[in-house]
């Protein structure tokens, strides 16, 4: 019998184990120290041998000298570690040589399956390009006003009613800024802007400048406009000074320096140019061409501007921006501001107008995406930013899922390859690398294609969004990083899953091509259901938006802007008076003109309110009031149901007589006939009370977002801004020639400028139309991506089931049998998708519709239509693929077995 004790070692081998209790060696300084290094840095499997050999040598070297032994021990052990790592590193390098092999094989695989590769790349590229475009859009929308160095400390003073508790109106009064600055130490400086379109001329170069503002000199210090000539901070400190943009300078002074030159304003004033700035960047909510100093207002020719518009607390004509000091208590300041009207406005006027007035602060950075009424230029919409971000993610998900689906579905065709690779010694890591590289290559190709699509699609995208994006925007670091990030994410999701999933198959299973191993069918099915659902939702949403928009555009507004030409007078007294005294008569007799009228607003514009009282009312209240001249109702086709129109002959008509709308009559509890002759008092002063002389049918003056409000027409000639001319017959160009001739005869010193009333009204639906167009574009793309995925999947199923269908054919199945058998699954999935998406469409659709006062109702046919369209898409694909089955010859298909 053997006396040896056997010990179990890993890997299992029987090794004689000898007890050696008394053979312990005293560890020296270096052995102890280096033992740790070795343990950590040398592979454990080889450690014992190395340590043993080192110890043995150490013992032997001790015989010559301790120093030599220590030195050699240290040197040898370090050398062993270094050698080991060098070896590992060269091994890694040898591994990385494989990369070229992975790349080569990937391209071979892609070329062999051209159809699927193109499908994959195009699908991904479409998804990516949508994402990138939406990224551009969202990035732009969220970048507004960030370029101002003091953006964080800038606020706009908004007005709102105290009951509502927030600022709903962007304008404030010109008197507020100075009072607030004097009484609230938290405010460092204030900037007032008064939008005042003016006629600007240098000699014969004469234009109406719409983006003309009177501003405080702090405009140049609180904000960060880029000054190219002149002294910015000093520029607007003197009366009659101007700051203009480079474009304006070029327009009036081509090829000569504009700084220090004079420009004529409204033919009666001369202003000196004291600085030239770059145009405000695209992401500025403030957009201007010319800034004039507010110091010039006291000598301005317009009396209203000179007087109450600039000095009355309750005349709301200015935009006020406040620069706050750092580190102040904002909440406290906001609370204190609510008291300002009571403390600082005229007590009598406060009682009359100010009790409900609230002053609110809106951060500059919030303005663009959270606009209130009376913004200078149309601003953005946070909801749209959110919706588009969600669409971007959805499209990308659909794209990724397509990729994933195709790769896993086709795994069975690649299983043999995987099995063979394994059989000839590829490790699981090798296979993972192989698949990872394939997805990286497909991802990169898709990215390049996406960039090309974005580049080519940019003009279209600009047209759709109404934004201006340039090629340079595609070269920003943010954009490049974003696209890289998105593509990395996509390949990670779409590529790495198959990499891990496929690499783990056993070689034997793989080589057999066992179809059970090709992934779970329910995952693939749910993915298809998800894609269908997204498609149905997007199609339904597109229809809904389109219907609501066309409903709004075609609804009878109760007024008619068709063939109405509008000539703005901008309140210039000379123009208004000329019109009233002579021009109107000359225009009205033109054979091409039906009627003409002057008024404060044209349909679609947001007017103001006037605080007044009708007979029988206990208290004053604010009524929406539109100031109009004779024939205004006629010109815009607003129907009178009782009473008469204003007349120039009756003096009371130009004072406090009014015409009201039906809603107002109903509010007062009057029938139209009863309303006539009822007393109306404007301003509660009891002087010259007027009466109701007419009642009109209800009409939509603004968009259908808002309800019809009680409205007063006043004939008081104070705010006449626009001449409206209704053309008789269909010959607009001829009419324009006639009108211009009359104009030139009377007012040669004013350019003849006009626009069409219906166009400006339609402009108000810009956001909806825009939204509709963007939605249409992106949902089309999303659906295309989803359909591409479906094509890939069905094509694959055809390949897989070709033999099955061959046998069915041989057994006598007809073409229609085959088609039903083939498409049954897809139709089932579509049905499930409908069940999932319908409630979502209804919920989300109703949410959106609630933002309109006048809206279509959510109807089932929208969902039905969406279902039919997506069904039709599937059907076409199914038929296309089914023809491959139907036209296949069973003899060819079954020959191989």
């Amino acid at each position, binding site marked *: 019998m053997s006396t040896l004790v056997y010990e179990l070692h890993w890997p299992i081998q029987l090794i*004689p184990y000898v007890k050696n209790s008394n053979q312990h060696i005293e560890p020296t300084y270096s052995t102890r120290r280096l033992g740790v290094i070795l343990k950590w840095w040398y592979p454990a499997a*080889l450690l014992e*041998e*190395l*340590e*043993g*050999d080192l110890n043995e040598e150490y013992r*032997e070297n001790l015989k010559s000298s301790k120093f030599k032994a220590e030195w050699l021990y240290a040197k040898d052990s370090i*050398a062993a570690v270094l050698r080991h790592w060098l070896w590992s590193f060269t091994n890694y390098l040898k591994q990385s040589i494989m990369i070229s092999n992975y790349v080569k094989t990937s391209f071979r695989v892609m070329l062999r399956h051209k159809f699927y590769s193109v499908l994959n790349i195009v699908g991904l590229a479409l998804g990516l390009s949508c994402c990138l475009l939406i990224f551009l859009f969202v990035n732009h929308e969220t970048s507004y006003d960030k370029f101002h160095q003091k953006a964080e400390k800038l606020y706009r003073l908004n007005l709102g009613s105290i009951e509502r508790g927030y600022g709903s109106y962007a304008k404030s009064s010109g008197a507020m800024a100075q009072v607030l600055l004097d009484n609230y130490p938290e405010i460092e400086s204030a900037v007032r802007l008064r939008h005042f379109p003016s006629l600007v001329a240098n000699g014969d170069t004469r234009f109406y400048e719409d983006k003309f503002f009177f501003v405080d000199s702090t405009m140049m210090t609180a904000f960060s406009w880029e000054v190219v000539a002149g002294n910015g901070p000093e520029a607007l400190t003197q009366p009659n000074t101007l700051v203009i943009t480079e474009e304006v300078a070029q327009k009036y002074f081509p090829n000569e320096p504009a700084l220090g030159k004079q420009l004529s304003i409204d033919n009666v004033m001369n202003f000196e140019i004291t600085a030239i700035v770059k145009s405000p960047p695209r992401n500025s909510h403030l957009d201007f061409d010319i800034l004039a100093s507010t110091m010039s207002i006291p000598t301005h020719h317009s009396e209203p501007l000179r007087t109450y518009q600039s000095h009355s607390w309750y005349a709301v004509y200015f935009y006020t921006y406040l620069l706050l000091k750092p580190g102040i208590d904002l909440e406290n300041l906001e609370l204190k501001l609510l008291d300002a009207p009571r403390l600082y406005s005229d007590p009598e006027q406060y009682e009359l107008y100010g009790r409900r007035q609230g002053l609110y602060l809106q951060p500059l950075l919030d303005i663009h995406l959270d606009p209130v009424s009376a913004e200078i230029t149309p601003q953005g919409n946070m909801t749209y930013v959110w919706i588009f971000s969600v669409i971007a993610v959805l499209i990308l998900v659909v794209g990724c899922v397509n990729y994933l689906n195709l790769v896993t579905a086709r795994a069975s065709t690649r299983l043999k390859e995987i099995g063979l690779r394994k059989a000839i010694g590829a490790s699981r890591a090798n296979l993972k690398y192989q698949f990872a590289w394939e997805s990286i290559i497909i991802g990169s190709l898709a990215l390049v294609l996406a960039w090309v699509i974005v580049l080519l699609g940019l003009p279209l995208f600009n047209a759709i969004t109404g934004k201006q994006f340039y090629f340079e925007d595609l070269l920003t670091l943010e954009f490049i990083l974003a696209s890289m990030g998105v593509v990395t994410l996509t390949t990670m999701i779409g590529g790495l899953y198959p990499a891990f999933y496929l690499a783990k198959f056993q070689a034997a299973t793989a080589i057999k091509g066992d179809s059970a191993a090709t992934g779970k069918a329910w995952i693939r099915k749910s993915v298809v259901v998800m894609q269908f659902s997204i498609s149905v939702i997007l199609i339904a949403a597109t229809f809904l938006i389109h219907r609501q928009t066309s409903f709004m555009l075609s609804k009878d507004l109760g007024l008619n802007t068709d063939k109405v030409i509008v000539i703005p007078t901008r309140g210039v007294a000379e123009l208004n008076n000329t019109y009233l005294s002579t021009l109107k008569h000359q225009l009205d007799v033109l054979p091409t003109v039906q009627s003409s009228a002057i008024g404060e607003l044209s349909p679609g514009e947001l007017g103001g309110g006037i605080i007044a009282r009708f007979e029988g009312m206990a208290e004053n209240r604010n009524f929406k009031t539109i100031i109009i001249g004779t024939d205004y109702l006629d010109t815009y086709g607003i129907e009178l149901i009782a009473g008469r129109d204003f007349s120039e002959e009756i003096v009371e008509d130009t004072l406090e007589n009014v015409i009201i709308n039906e809603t107002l009559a109903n509010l007062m509890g009057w029938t139209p006939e009863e309303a006539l002759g009822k007393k109306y008092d404007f301003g509660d002063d009891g002087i010259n009370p007027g009466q109701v002389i007419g009642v009109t049918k209800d009409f939509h003056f603004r968009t259908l977002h808002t309800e019809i409000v009680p409205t007063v027409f006043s004939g008081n000639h104070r705010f006449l801004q626009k001449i409206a001319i209704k053309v008789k017959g269909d010959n607009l160009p001829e009419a324009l020639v006639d009108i211009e001739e009359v104009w030139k005869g009377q007012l040669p010193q004013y350019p003849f400028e006009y626009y069409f009333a219906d166009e400006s009204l339609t402009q108000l639906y810009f956001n909806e139309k825009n939204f509709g167009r963007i939605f249409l574009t992106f949902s089309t793309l999303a659906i295309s991506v989803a359909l591409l995925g479906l094509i890939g999947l069905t094509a694959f199923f055809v390949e897989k089931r070709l033999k099955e269908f061959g046998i069915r054919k041989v057994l006598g199945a007809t073409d229609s049998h085959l088609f039903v058998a083939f498409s049954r699954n897809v139709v089932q999935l579509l049905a499930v998708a409908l069940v999932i998406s319908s409630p979502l469409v209804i919920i989300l659709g109703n949410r959106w519709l609630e933002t309109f006062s006048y809206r279509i109702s959510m109807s089932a046919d929208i969902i039905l239509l969406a279902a039919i369209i997506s069904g039709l898409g599937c059907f076409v694909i199914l038929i296309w693929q089914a023809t491959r089955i139907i036209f296949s010859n069973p003899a060819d298909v079954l020959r191989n077995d």
Partner: protein
Amino acid sequence: MKGTYLGEFEELVMLVVGVLHPKAYGVAIKKQILSQTKRKVTLSAVHAVLHRLENKGYLTSEFGEATAERGGKRKKYFTITMAGSKALSMAMETRKDLWSQIPNVALHRS
């Protein structure tokens, strides 16, 4: 064939393993090389070559007994495998073959 080729030092180590059979382990091999060829090699070089040859399948190893001077660590004995002996003899054949083809003149032998 690429792969069966042996480096000069690899060949030397394999030959020494053969000489020391069956008691060839790190320190012994190093000593043997020193005494037979007067070449001073480091222990780590010997180990590296031994492990490389083992990876290639030319050598095989098993743990032997532990001794006091090894601090209780076991020796690792290397032996030549079938593939190793083939590779060795192929190297020798090649050399013999080449030697036999060299004309005497070329080696300055009369």
